């Protein structure tokens, strides 16, 4: 009988493990197709995590606690390298040993010393990649959970053993999601052999919820959230306000994925968020949003402080405690960012946000404390109105919190005041409509079961069905042809939206990390770009309009590729200054694409085209004058220098959003206090009235944008006139930036101005259509074209240049047929 039971239970276990493998395979496919959290590398490493989960569930339960930290160490070694993983692991081991000290005072003092040591080490080793990353990783893992563990360890009736403590501090999700919240150690240590089916069900629910939240976030981020640089109409302003708060979906999505991984590993965790968009008032908010954080604050700060103030009148004690708690919340948010970024963000809008939030919650707490009787629920209609009202209130506060600065927030809000009467009427009617809509939906949902369908948690089979649907949709978009003609293609080929792209590009131009409040989307990207794009040893920084030049006769490795300059300071082979008879010489002018950021010597499209022309017996020399960070003003500055090379033609290469990039470039120069050199530029900047340091970037951008057409015309005129005066053919070539494949509304204006200034035109606007973006870019974080991308550009450009050289009288306005 016993043997039969054991056999049945063993068969069931293998059947359940098979189900788990199927579910995990589906999740792996969905995460791969939609590139979920690709910037942290989660999509690439999730197959390994899934493998670890399956093995973890195969091994006997009593051995699993030894395996948990091993998986973290293994995955960390794969992602960051074994040395870094061991470095971070050692920090965790020290933290675990501290929890074994005999008294609370000893534990807290030694822990404080460890934190102090790590803070100093993080600062000291800021420029040492290895040490800095290891300390940051270790610090991120213990920054909050260690505090929670130190607090709770005194109260455990049964003390957790060494491995349980280690597992608590060294959690796998933290590798990809450093801000994964503080799991309650009491709940974590309750880990026991649960029904495997329950683990799968929980894991599946969490993962699916996380994926759906992240896809919804991506949709809002890419298709709905307007750029702060393009806020003009009432609709854009309202979308800006409302979409900002909707982006909390990213946070909830990440937390759900993390909880999903832990559930699959057998940990039964409570929800982190509870229908947070259905919050009815501020008291309700505290009960639904980031519940782990709330619980941590309650346990470690709120109740201990309140109990210490027992002799105070209760209302005063509550008021004081809530205000202190919000101060601590602000401090701990800065504490988290210290480990992520390496500095404590001290921002006026951040402080104001937490102060306002603290005051509101203190008021709500006091009011609730005074309420003696049970308050009956509101009428459903008013509940609905409350939900919409809270969404507006949170959106308002969130817009303050996520702004780059207080001046930027005030400037953007001020745009509401500048709307005309008609626009204000539309805005008011829309807001009233939203409130009434919320009330009516809430009322109807109380009278009918219809809406429950959307709110109830879907059963297991529906989750599988949703995964299958996502796989079908993802495959269609992922592997379908002509991706860019499909409106939702960006859901599987995520890119930065305009606001984030501007921040990254400004950083690129300025070489300054001046953006203290980057969105979570670009945090990892910017960190990597910062390392990659600025660390070219061939760059020599300059004081004037040219941010940098290339050192002549220099050889280095840039982004892992050979990078050599010739005696003219060009990323090119050596040429003679004196031109050989019969050779057609072209100077190619542009930025990092032309320079070949991320490809090896000889792989640039300039070199490929030159080789191809010479191969078909068209003797030609293309001088690559591209330098990273150069845009139209830098080209206007260097254009006279091309005369010495006696070229027949000069090609200026324009990419997506020409005017935006130009303004961004100018803004970077002005903010960095560079000499603009051209009196016209100085006069425009003077006329615009911009004051760096006193005005926010958005305001300065808006003020300069008024002059965008004139500025572009000026720069194009400078380039073309120098060329035409010296019998050099000015050629304007356009192809889009791979990282910005939205429809380029500025191309036609730039083209028109270029034509009017006498440029010949080569328009290659659809050369990347139908291509898998990731196969033609340097990496996920670096959207410069790779060798394959350069080959595509060369293939497209080659016939036009051949024609230009062979038929020197041809007019090259040859838009491609779609």
């Amino acid at each position, binding site marked *: 009988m016993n043997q039969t039971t054991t056999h049945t239970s063993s068969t069931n276990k293998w059947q359940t493990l098979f189900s788990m493998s199927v579910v995990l395979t589906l999740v792996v496919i969905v995460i791969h197709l939609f590139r979920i959290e690709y910037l942290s590398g989660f999509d690439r490493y999730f197959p390994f995590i899934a493998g670890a989960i399956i093995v973890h569930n195969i091994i006997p339960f009593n051995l699993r606690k030894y395996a948990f930290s091993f998986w973290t160490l293994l995955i960390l070694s794969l992602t960051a390298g074994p040395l870094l993983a061991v470095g971070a692991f050692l920090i965790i081991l020290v933290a675990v040993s501290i929890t074994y000290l005999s008294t609370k005072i000893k534990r807290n003092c030694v822990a404080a010393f460890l934190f102090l040591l790590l803070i100093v080490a993080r600062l000291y080793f800021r420029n040492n990649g290895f040490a800095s990353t290891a300390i940051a990783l270790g610090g991120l893992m213990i920054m909050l959970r260690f505090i929670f563990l130190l*607090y709770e360890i005194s109260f455990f009736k049964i003390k957790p053993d060494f491995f349980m403590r280690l597992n608590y501090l060294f959690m796998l999700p933290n590798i990809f999601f450093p801000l994964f919240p503080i799991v309650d150690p*009491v709940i974590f240590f309750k880990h026991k052999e649960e029904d495997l089916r329950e683990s799968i069900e929980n894991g599946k629910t969490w993962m699916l919820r996380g994926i759906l939240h992240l896809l919804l976030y991506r949709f809002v981020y890419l298709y709905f959230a307007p750029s702060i640089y393009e806020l003009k109409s009432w609709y854009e302003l309202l979308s800006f306000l409302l979409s900002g708060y909707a982006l909390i979906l990213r946070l909830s999505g990440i937390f759900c994925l993390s909880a999903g991984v832990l559930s699959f590993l057998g940990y039964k965790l409570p929800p982190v968020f509870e229908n947070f968009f259905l919050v009815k008032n501020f*008291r309700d908010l*505290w009960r639904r949003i980031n519940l782990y954080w709330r619980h941590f604050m309650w346990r470690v700060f*709120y*109740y201990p402080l309140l109990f*210490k103030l027992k002799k105070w009148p209760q209302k005063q004690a509550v008021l004081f405690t809530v205000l202190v708690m919000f101060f601590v919340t602000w401090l701990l948010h800065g504490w988290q960012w210290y480990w992520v970024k390496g500095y404590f963000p001290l921002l006026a809008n951040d402080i104001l946000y937490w102060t306002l939030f603290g005051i509101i919650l203190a008021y709500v707490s006091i009011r609730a404390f005074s309420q003696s*009787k*049970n308050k*009956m629920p509101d009428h459903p209609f008013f509940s609905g109105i409350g939900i919409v009202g809270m969404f507006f209130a949170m959106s308002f506060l969130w817009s303050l919190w996520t702004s780059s600065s207080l001046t930027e927030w005030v400037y953007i809000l001020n745009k509401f005041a500048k709307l005309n009467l008609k626009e204000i009427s539309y805005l008011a009617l829309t807001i009233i409509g939203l409130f009434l809509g919320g009330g009516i939906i809430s009322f109807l949902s109380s009278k009918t079961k219809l809406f429950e369908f959307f709110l109830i948690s879907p059963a297991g089979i529906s989750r599988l069905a949703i995964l299958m649907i996502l796989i079908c949709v993802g495959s269609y978009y992922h592997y379908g042809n002509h991706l860019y003609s499909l409106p939702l293609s960006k859901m599987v080929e995520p890119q930065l939206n305009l606001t984030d792209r501007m921040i990254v590009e400004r950083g690129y131009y300025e070489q300054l990390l001046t953006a203290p409040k980057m969105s979570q989307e670009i945090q990892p990207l910017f960190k990597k770009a910062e390392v990659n794009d600025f660390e070219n040893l061939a760059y020599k920084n300059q004081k004037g309009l040219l941010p940098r030049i290339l050192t002549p006769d220099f050889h280095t490795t840039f982004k892992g590729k050979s990078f050599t300059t010739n005696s003219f300071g060009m990323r090119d082979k050596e040429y003679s200054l004196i031109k050989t008879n019969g050779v057609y010489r072209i100077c190619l002018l542009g930025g990092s694409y032309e320079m070949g950021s991320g490809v090896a010597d000889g792989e640039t499209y300039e070199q490929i085209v030159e080789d191809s022309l010479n191969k078909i017996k068209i003797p030609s020399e293309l001088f690559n004058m591209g330098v990273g960070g150069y845009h139209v003003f830098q080209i206007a500055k260097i254009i006279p220098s091309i005369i010495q090379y006696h070229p027949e033609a000069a090609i200026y290469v324009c990419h997506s959003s020409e005017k935006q990039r130009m303004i961004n470039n100018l803004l970077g120069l002005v903010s960095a206090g560079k000499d603009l050199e051209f009196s016209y530029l100085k006069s425009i900047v003077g006329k615009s009235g911009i004051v760096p340091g006193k005005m926010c970037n958005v305001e300065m951008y808006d003020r300069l944008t008024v002059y965008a057409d004139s500025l572009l015309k000026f720069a194009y005129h400078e380039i073309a006139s120098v060329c035409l005066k010296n019998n050099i053919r000015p050629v304007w070539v356009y192809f889009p930036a791979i990282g910005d494949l939205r429809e380029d509304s500025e191309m036609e204006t730039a083209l028109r101005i270029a034509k009017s200034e006498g440029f010949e035109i080569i328009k290659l606007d659809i050369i990347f259509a139908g291509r898998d973006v990731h196969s033609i870019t340097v990496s996920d974080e670096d959207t410069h074209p790779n060798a394959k991308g350069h080959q595509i550009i060369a293939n497209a450009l080659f016939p036009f240049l051949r024609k230009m050289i062979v038929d020197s009288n041809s007019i090259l306005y040859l838009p491609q047929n779609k």
Partner: protein
Amino acid sequence: MSQDEIRQTVRAFLIDNIYAGIENAELKDESPLISTRIIDSIVALKLVSYLEEKFNVEFEAHEVDQDNLDTINKIVSFVQSKMK
């Protein structure tokens, strides 16, 4: 004080004070209160003050948690253990 008397006192307090509004019959002795967020931090605090005053017991800060206050039964057991 008997277990039933403590239970009735706790129940009466909760019916009067818990946030969402709930009828006496709906509130079972095993209904989760903290984990379902029927009791929030304010009500928990009021409950603790009430219990301290009513039964002359003293709570520690770390005792205000799910293990002790999540259901009426747990509250009753905890108060009883404190009264011993």
